């Protein structure tokens, strides 16, 4: 019956694209997601805006007029200690994120790949640094440094940042390693890869998203930390501590400019990559 009728149906019908079941929903989801990202960027927009402000007094609170003045090199460098603080922040962030990610990933692997005595207790112990109020942790650590007569500086800041970031990395990475297919690691070992090589060539690529996420979290934690840094910084300032002090006199516009520049570096990186991966992401973002 219809078996014979079917071939006569217009060809166009055959070619009619299958109804985009998943795509439509995907569009809503994509719109929503972009809205959330936009929301995350909202305060940044304000920050950028106030980087172009031309306040008459020392407070950069209300928009007084547009100027590019603070982007001029002389104004940008008007507060070398701010730039210095930025340099410190970046150094601390880089080192501590790297170390915390390394330590944390190793612990996550140990916790999820092996059963060993004290595993449960260790697991619980790892929550403690996250549960400890910063000020408590900061002053306790300071007491330790004082007792050991360690002078405070970049090193002690890095030590502290690594310390409080590890748990965050562990928890993040564990969310993935817990369910990794063990056969893949077996296969690597079978093919002559020692544990390190197995990690490097198989485990790591497979958990890379988690490690990346953990590293980013550690970086944000470090960059944003104020209280713990405060206690262990000695004569060194990071961006948050310097700004906190500056609020009393008035946070200079340069802070917004510097923040904008850091942000722009990230944006430029993202944009370049978006262009490079054109058409590979969601159809909605890629130009049609």
């Amino acid at each position, binding site marked *: 019956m219809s078996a014979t009728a079917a071939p006569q149906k217009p060809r166009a019908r055959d070619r009619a694209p299958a109804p985009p079941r998943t795509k439509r929903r995907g569009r809503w989801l994509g719109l929503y997601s972009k809205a959330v990202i936009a929301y995350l960027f909202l305060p940044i927009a304000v920050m950028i805006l106030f980087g172009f402000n031309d306040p008459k007094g020392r*407070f950069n609170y209300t928009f007084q007029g547009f100027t590019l003045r603070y982007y001029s090199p002389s104004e940008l460098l008007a507060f070398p200690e701010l730039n210095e603080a930025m340099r410190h922040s970046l150094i601390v962030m880089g080192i501590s994120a790297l170390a915390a990610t390394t330590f944390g990933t190793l612990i996550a692997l140990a916790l999820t790949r092996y059963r060993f005595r004290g595993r449960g207790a260790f697991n619980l112990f790892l929550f403690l640094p996250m549960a400890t109020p910063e000020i408590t942790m900061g002053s306790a650590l300071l007491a330790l440094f004082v007792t050991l007569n360690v002078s405070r500086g970049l090193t002690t800041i890095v030590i502290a940042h690594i310390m409080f970031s590890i748990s965050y990395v562990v928890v993040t990475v564990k969310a993935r390693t817990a369910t990794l297919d063990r056969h893949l690691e077996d296969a690597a070992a079978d093919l002559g890869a020692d544990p390190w090589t197995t990690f490097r060539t198989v485990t790591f690529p497979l958990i890379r998203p988690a490690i990346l996420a953990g590293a980013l979290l550690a970086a944000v934690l470090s960059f944003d930390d104020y209280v713990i840094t405060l206690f262990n910084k000695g004569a060194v300032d990071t961006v948050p501590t310097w700004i906190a002090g500056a609020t009393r006199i008035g946070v200079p516009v340069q802070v917004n400019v510097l923040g904008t520049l850091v942000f722009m570096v990230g944006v430029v990186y993202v944009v370049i990559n978006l262009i490079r991966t054109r058409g590979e992401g969601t159809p909605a973002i890629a130009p049609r």
Partner: protein
Amino acid sequence: GIRGEAERNRTEENGAAQDPDYTTDEITGTLNFANWPLYIDRAKGKRPTIDDFEKSSDIQVNYQEVIEDNESFFGTIREPLANDQQIEWDLIVVTDWLIAKMARLGYLEQLDHSRLPNFEQNAGEVYKDPTYDPGNAHSIPWQSGITGIGYDPKRTGREITSFEDLFDPAFAGKVGMFTEMRDTMNLTLLGLGVDPQEATVEDAERAQQKLLEQREAGIVREYYGNEYADALIRGDVWITMAWSGDIFQLQFDDPDLQFVVPDEGGILWVDNMAIPQNAAHPIDALEFMNFVYDPEVAAQITAWVNYICPVPAAQDILAQAKDNYTQQVAQSPLVFPTPEMEARLHSYKTLEEDEEEAWNDLFNQVIQG
């Protein structure tokens, strides 16, 4: 009187543990100076005052802007000082009440006033022999400010003169108070007609009651740190406790904003220079202290910082400046208070330890409902 005696007792008590002498009697050529960010004059990324000092004295200044606020700075140096260790600073700038506290705890060196002729000569009279540091034994002022009331007449619709205006239900939800215990408690005591210096714990309890009522009635919007200035200019608060220097700055953006020392009285607080115990380069520190009491130098600093200058002679120097901004600085009563204003100013009450604990407890109950 009583204060000075207690001080002497303490010093004697700790005499054995605490070296009465400086670690050195020589100029070493190095000075480690901890100050608040942006609390000294700047030009083209440099600090002229520091540069001038280095040139004139052959002392290298390691100037660091590491102090965020009194309490956390004290938190970070307390441990080593309590352990009788040397900290990295030879010279620090902290507010008067903390000077009193640190002196009480024996954390500060005595000042050798023979090395501070400029101070004797140029300092304003209000700044000499203050209640928080009798005889300027441990400190001399850096800059100072007034705690009073700031408001936006456009919004309040009327002139503000009294402390009671902070309790006007018409401003409910638009009133700002401070998280700073000393500012808020002392100002409230003044509002209640009590001289802070004479205040008892009962007075403090009355002040607490007053503040609690204000809070319960929904008049207070928020207890602010530094951000009250932001809220004021944005209209989130209409009337608020305020520091003179902030309002001076805000007036550039909104000239309508006003600062008043309430009729009941306001508070003069002073940020002081002091030498921490066991400092490595005390003489260099004294050299610097003396240096900034040169009126020219004081004027240079004040012209940029715009806080109240402890050297009255600086006003005349600034008044001779040609540029508009400096003229404004020179003429503003918020930088050089009028004698009439000064007459209404009081210092914080210098608190004994148990008093401090009691006041803190009372105040914490206010802001941590």
